[in-house]
């Protein structure tokens, strides 16, 4: 029976879950016993029954305290994690597919949704085959080995904390799906489908799974540093953002970039997609508590506040600078806020979330407009500008706004300035591995099967040339 719990979860989720267990179960037990007692004492009178309930409550709590040592399956936690897993998948399918699909030109919209959908399928199989094992197999500083390859030993009865390991594995799988799918936006409109399939398969194995192990796996080196990443600021967002930037540079600009009209063909699709991402993010952040308790509750609240404040921050920044508040601006801001709060969602209070959202929204707006223009790379859908930069802002601000009473670690505002350095160290580790290995992978694909479609195919329509279909 596997009762291994990752230290990250242990540090964050366990104390909170422990509190929940004693309180909630105590009440449950007292209620049951209270009913039995009152039935037995029906003839004696209601007063005795009430005393009986009180005694039973006390007895229940005591029994619970004695039995609290070994984690047991909690159906409440499991129910929430089943739900969270489903809605994190919804972030990618259809959320991200629509968010990205609306932003490309009409001739390439099917190519975009195809790339996201295929990446979700590839992510599933690769995670099942080796990804889960590399990330969460055995303890170790750099990787978890292959002992759980093809989910060996992940049986029906195994527990991770208070939930089945199958649920934990699938929950993590949905993260391994959305992270590579996010990268797709950076090289939209120009990558060969075969190159994408090879890249995604290898990227999850070589980049995603190891970094997941470093941050969340047993004995991972970033975890040991004491870096805070509740739901994937480094693992998901900095990782995909940096990979996107490197990919945009290596694959090169779209034909006609900055000369031709590349405006989004349907921003309603993007708005629907962003809204699905927002809702799914509750599973992402509150689900990362791995329990249905106070930690998940606070994560949900701060997620909502940061998203809205970043959406407004981006909207007002754009309104001031360009004269009009745009739909693409407000939905991009919401996503930027969700990215920025991701690492912080188990560690900060609502006031911290407000500031993380405001700062994240403005900085991501600047990165996606001015910085991109200044440096000249063609990160088509701003994967770096929103996920890379937003992830870094969020990781640093987690070190600023962390509240000891919430996640057990104090941030700079509570006098622990060193936490910021720890956060920066974890950011750098992620940037280096993700950046270098993504470059190596892409260059290897470039010299073997090639990365890009021909200029003629690109000018025509990838939907027609690569997939033989058109949207209408």
């Amino acid at each position, binding site marked *: 029976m596997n009762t291994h719990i990752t230290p990250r979860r242990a540090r964050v989720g366990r104390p909170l879950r422990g509190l929940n267990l004693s309180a909630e179960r105590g009440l449950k037990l007292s209620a049951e016993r209270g009913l039995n007692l009152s039935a037995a004492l029906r003839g004696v009178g209601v007063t005795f029954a009430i005393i009986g309930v009180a005694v039973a409550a006390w007895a229940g709590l005591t029994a619970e305290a004695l039995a609290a040592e070994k984690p047991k399956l909690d159906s409440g936690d499991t129910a929430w994690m089943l739900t969270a897993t489903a809605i994190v998948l919804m972030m990618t399918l259809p959320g991200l597919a629509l968010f990205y699909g609306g932003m490309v030109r009409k001739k390439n919209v099917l190519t975009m949704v195809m790339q996201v959908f295929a990446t979700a399928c590839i992510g599933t199989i690769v995670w099942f085959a080796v990804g889960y094992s590399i990330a969460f197999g055995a303890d170790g500083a750099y990787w978890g080995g292959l002992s759980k390859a093809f989910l060996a030993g992940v049986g029906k009865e195994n527990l991770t904390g208070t939930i089945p390991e199958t649920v934990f594995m699938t929950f993590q799988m949905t993260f391994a799906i959305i992270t590579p799918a996010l990268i797709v936006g950076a090289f939209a409109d120009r990558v060969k489908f075969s190159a994408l399939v090879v890249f995604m398969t290898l990227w999850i194995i070589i980049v995603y799974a190891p970094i997941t192990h470093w941050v969340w796996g047993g004995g991972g080196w970033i975890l040991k540093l004491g870096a805070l990443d509740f739901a994937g600021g480094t693992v998901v967002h900095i990782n995909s953002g940096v990979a996107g930037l490197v990919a945009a540079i290596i694959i090169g600009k779209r034909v006609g970039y900055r000369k031709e*009209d*590349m*405006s989004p063909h349907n921003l309603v699709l993007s708005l629907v997609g962003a809204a699905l991402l927002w809702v799914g993010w509750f599973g992402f952040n509150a689900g990362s508590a791995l329990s249905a308790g106070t930690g998940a509750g606070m994560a949900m609240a701060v997620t909502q506040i940061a998203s809205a404040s970043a959406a407004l921050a981006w909207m007002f920044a754009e309104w001031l600078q360009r004269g*009009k508040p*745009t739909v*693409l601006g407000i939905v991009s801001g919401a996503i930027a806020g969700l990215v920025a709060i991701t690492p912080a969602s188990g560690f900060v209070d609502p006031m911290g979330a407000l500031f993380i959202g405001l700062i994240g929204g403005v900085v991501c707006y600047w990165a996606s*407009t001015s910085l*991109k223009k200044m440096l000249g790379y063609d990160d088509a859908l*701003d994967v770096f*500008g929103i996920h890379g930069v937003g992830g870094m802002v969020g990781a640093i601000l987690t070190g600023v706004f962390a509240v000891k009473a919430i996640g057990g670690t104090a941030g700079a505002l509570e006098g622990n300035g060193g936490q910021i350095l720890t956060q920066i160290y974890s950011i750098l580790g992620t940037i280096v591995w993700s950046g270098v290995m993504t470059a190596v992978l892409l260059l290897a694909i470039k010299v073997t099967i090639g990365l890009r479609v021909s200029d003629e195919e690109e000018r025509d329509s990838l939907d027609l040339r690569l997939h033989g279909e058109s949207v209408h």
Partner: protein
Amino acid sequence: MKLVTAIVKPFKLDEVREALTSIGVEGLTVSEVKGFGRQKGHTEIYRGAEYEISFVPKVRIDVVVSDTLADQVVDAITKSARTGSIGDGKIFVSDVSKAVRIRTGDVDNDAL
């Protein structure tokens, strides 16, 4: 016979159609077109990327009428399509050498 081609603002289409049927025009063809004249396009901004949209959506009306009706048609379109602001469109009149109604084989004025 004359072909009257009018490029007008899309929201004016219904008024133009009513004006033309009231003077006895029994059919016309409409297409959605884009173009530019003195009315310039506009700028769209997506995450800081600015696009000059130089072509403005318009409606093109093609109507073929007998020579006697042509001036009335031009007059009716001019009145019904005018807003007074820039971008109201243009009207072109040209000669038509032959017309045939496919169902009956009627030609020229009988076919209109």
